[in-house]
């Protein structure tokens, strides 16, 4: 059960992202919402989730929330404190099922921009850059993007393609030299849960977030969206999810 409107957008994103995490899977986690989502998933449906952090931490208890992908909480009581090569090479060998990504822009094929707005050499806005995102998008089996919905983020054309989604469509990843059978899987936003239509590799709406309508999702998306035949509603955060988030995972409200 859930109290109506008794949660904010960040909390909804975190709970929705957590539900995408599969028990027992190895999952690359980035800073921010994915960390909270992993901590929540481990306390709910996925206690055996292995959170992997690109600088070497693998499988921490996530008792305390990391503030950086390389900080000591990413390997607290973990079976492995390795290295960046260790973890990225494990992903290259096909060991890492999921990778969580964010970005400033996403297009209909799930390609992501985290580098610049405007011209690369004299950018209007310089973002931090790929970091591990390009590797995660290249090497994991399935990637899940978590971001806020908005026309300036869901764009017809990226200013810069930092991380590979399906590139230009079916077969494009393989033609580029990336390993077959991998690519974007889900996009979690404050308005919807989206996936990709297998034949065209184009983004499609799978579920609507509480209170959101298809019209609202379309109005906030800068490209044509496909819609799943069995469009469903994503249940709101439960009281227990919110309690865990507020009282155990992020009691200092660093993120929410």
């Amino acid at each position, binding site marked *: 059960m859930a109290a109506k409107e008794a949660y904010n957008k960040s909390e909804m994103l975190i709970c929705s992202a957590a539900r995408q995490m599969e028990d027992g899977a190895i999952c690359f986690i980035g800073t921010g919402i994915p960390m909270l989502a992993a901590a929540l998933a481990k306390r709910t449906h996925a206690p055996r989730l292995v959170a992997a952090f690109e600088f070497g931490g693998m499988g921490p208890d996530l008792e305390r929330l990391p*503030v*950086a992908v390389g900080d*000591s909480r990413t390997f607290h009581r973990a079976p492995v404190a390795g290295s960046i090569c260790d973890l990225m090479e494990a992903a290259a060998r096909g060991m890492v099922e999921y990778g969580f990504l964010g970005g400033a822009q996403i297009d209909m094929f799930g390609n992501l921009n985290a580098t610049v707005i405007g011209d*690369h050499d004299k950018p209007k806005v*310089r973002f931090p850059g790929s970091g591990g995102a390009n590797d995660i998008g290249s090497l994991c089996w399935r990637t899940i993007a978590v971001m806020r919905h908005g026309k300036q983020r869901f764009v017809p054309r990226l200013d*810069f*393609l930092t991380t590979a989604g399906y590139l230009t469509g079916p077969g494009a990843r393989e*033609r580029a*030299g990336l390993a077959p059978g991998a690519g974007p899987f889900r996009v979690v936003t404050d308005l919807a849960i989206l996936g990709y239509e297998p034949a065209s590799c184009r983004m499609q709406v799978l579920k609507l977030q509480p209170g959101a309508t298809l019209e609202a999702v379309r109005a906030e998306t800068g490209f044509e969206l496909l819609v799943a035949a069995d469009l469903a509603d994503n249940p709101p955060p439960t009281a227990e999810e919110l309690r865990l988030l507020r009282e155990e995972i992020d009691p200092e409200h660093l993120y929410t």
Partner: protein
Amino acid sequence: MAELKSGRGPLIRMLPPDEVRAWMRANKPKGQVSKLMTEREAIAKFVRPEQYVGVELYGGVRCPMSLVRELVRQRIGPLDLAGQGVLENDMLIAAGLVRRLDITYHGYEVYGTSPILRRACESGKVQTVEWSNAALAWRFKAAAMGLPFLPVRSMLGTGTFDYSGAKEILCPFTGVKLCAIPALHLDVGLIHVHRADEFGNCQIDGITGFAAEMARASKRLIVSAEEIVPHLEIQKAPDRTLIPYFIVDAVVHAPGGSLPGEMPYLYWRDDAHIKAYMEAVQTEEGAQRYLQEWVHGTRDHTDFVKKLGGEKRLAELRAEATTR
């Protein structure tokens, strides 16, 4: 088959491995001799303008901040820089010492983008060449292996590739397209470790980031250590020597050397100081004021730690350290 592509570069650094081999033979200390010196001595001895420098780990974690601050004090530049940066690269750029950057990630993670990087790039003052995290680590690995490049499966098909110095190649065995990333040799590498002996045998606790690879890719390697231990301690656990003495050129004793960043198991990051830093650097004037007060305004690392609150502040941060 489509034509094979090349990133547009520029390739800031590409040393022929055979040249580096000869240089290593002629210049690296092969005997176990004491390399203990201060930050001031190590930076003055090994870093020169126009060189290519790199730091490890990254951001606010096990970062060689006492060495970076000394580099800023001595104002050695312009430099080319690899990385990964939150505090260390940020500070070097703020000090105006960096002209080109092989960038992978430079930001404050949850706290957002770096105003220092933004000003440097958006004004065109610092030139960036794009790489992924693993690509930079693997470039160090290629150098560590004595190879001119390694084939990998990151970056393919993306703008990150187009704006890098990588090249597509075909695998001679399987025919698949691969991304060839060039070896990255540093003129000087800076690494902070938990403990070292006077010869430079180093141990790291917790994740090792890309220390093993970067150490071996550095022509000159300056190591700072929380603790200098007797050689016998190293001999008791030689399997823990991640960085062996013969690749180390200087050993600096720097307790609290990662501050205001954290040192796994020893002390947590000084969040209050990092927040004050991030507020200060919102403007160019604020960034310069920070450097004036906290870097140029402190004589050396000991003086910096004293200004931060000395033993009292260190004790607080030790109490917050992640436990085992």
